[in-house]
């Protein structure tokens, strides 16, 4: 999924990658393109993980893992970092999800359970401010429940914010008409994906239609 997402990122994009699968995208920059990675804790121009033993506790990413800085990087404080995010200066953010609704509502910070420790981090800022929001997620939960739904039952991270979803089964756009199938994984059928999706899927238009 991570390499598939990377194919859709235009050259020269400023990109914020969420924690988890989204972090892997940095390994798949297509030939001839250059992306600049932003991490909201104060670094633009984030590079790959350091070699073992060469990391620094004061050079970390939003997931609190040690990283490096590329030539042309810059450090800044939190208010300035969120000027970038909330002012619409980051082109693309790739996030994980608990649920995505057919209108683009995203829930990815809390199951709302009475025992859960609520923790939001920068997710609400990212979905409110970044130009395009991609979601990368397994199509269903570990128990088999659809994560793409008619309406989110978990607390929202933001309303109508998701542009495109990449799952293990398909690539799906959020459109005014609902979930639009864009691409299907090899060996998977439309019906197979639809059965595992909690809202109607619009089929891929045939090229000659």
């Amino acid at each position, binding site marked *: 999924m991570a390499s598939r997402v990377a194919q859709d990122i235009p*050259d*020269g994009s*400023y990109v914020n990658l969420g924690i988890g699968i989204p972090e892997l995208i940095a390994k798949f920059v297509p030939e*001839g*393109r*250059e992306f*600049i990675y*932003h991490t909201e804790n104060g*670094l*633009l*121009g984030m590079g790959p993980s350091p070699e073992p033993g060469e990391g620094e506790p004061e050079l970390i990413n939003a997931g609190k893992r040690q990283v490096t*800085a*590329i*030539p*042309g*990087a*810059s*450090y*800044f404080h939190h208010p*300035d970092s*969120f*000027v*970038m995010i*909330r*002012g*619409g*200066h*980051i082109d693309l953010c790739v996030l994980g999800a608990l649920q995505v609704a057919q209108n683009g509502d995203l829930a990815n910070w809390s199951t709302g359970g009475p025992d859960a420790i609520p923790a939001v981090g920068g997710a609400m800022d990212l979905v*409110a*401010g970044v130009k395009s929001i991609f979601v990368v997620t397994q199509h269903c939960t570990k128990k088999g429940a659809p994560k793409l739904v008619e309406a989110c039952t978990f607390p929202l991270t933001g309303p109508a914010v998701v542009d495109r979803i990449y799952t293990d089964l398909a690539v799906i756009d959020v459109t005014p008409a609902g979930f639009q199938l864009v691409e299907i994984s090899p060996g998977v059928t439309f019906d197979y994906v639809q059965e595992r999706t909690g809202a109607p899927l619009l089929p891929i238009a045939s090229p000659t239609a």
Partner: protein
Amino acid sequence: MINKDVASISDAVADIFDGATVMIGGFGEAGSPVELIHALIDQGAKNLTVVNNNTGSGEVGLAALIKAGRVAKMICSYPRSMNSTVFPELYKSGRIELELVPQGTLAERIRAGGAGIPGFYTATSVGTPLEEGKERKTFGGRDYVLELGLTADFALIKAHRADTHGNLIYNKTARNFAPAMATAAKVTIVQTRELVAPGGIDPEVVITPGLFVNRVVTVANPAHESALVAAGVSYP
């Protein structure tokens, strides 16, 4: 690949359109991007709204742009200078509009515009004529007025050093409004004394990170307004 270097100053300002809002860096002459402003005069765009702390001096730079009749409206805090009659004459004859904004409010409105903040409250101007038309709100027993974020189509600013990713540093008090304007404009155009490869500026000392910058053009020996005025230059 990312390279924001633009070969010519005329290319850098080519797409500034009639009616555009243009933020121009500088406080007095410090930080004024004189060469970019002169390129804009040559380019011909008119009916501009210009955001700058002042209205220029002599008949060069911003004052020359105003004199050429290209500016329909100034948004500024201090439209007076000891050595320019350009703005006062147009203003008194009703040929240019003025939105007078306290200096700190102007700076904060530009920052807010760049930060995605549509409005904020400040104590500045409460109880004065500049409060007129603004919403008032009380916090902790004190009155504040609502001020709106300010954005622009273009920003013209002057840097001391840039890299090809658009990272910038400035020189002394020439920094002033430029970093905020770079965040608040759709297209930020920079003239720099020096252009270096990525890595040529320490990441710890970058003032304007490259994602706020669209175009960089090198002007190795920029003119200072005061020198041009002293030499009696009137542009063009």
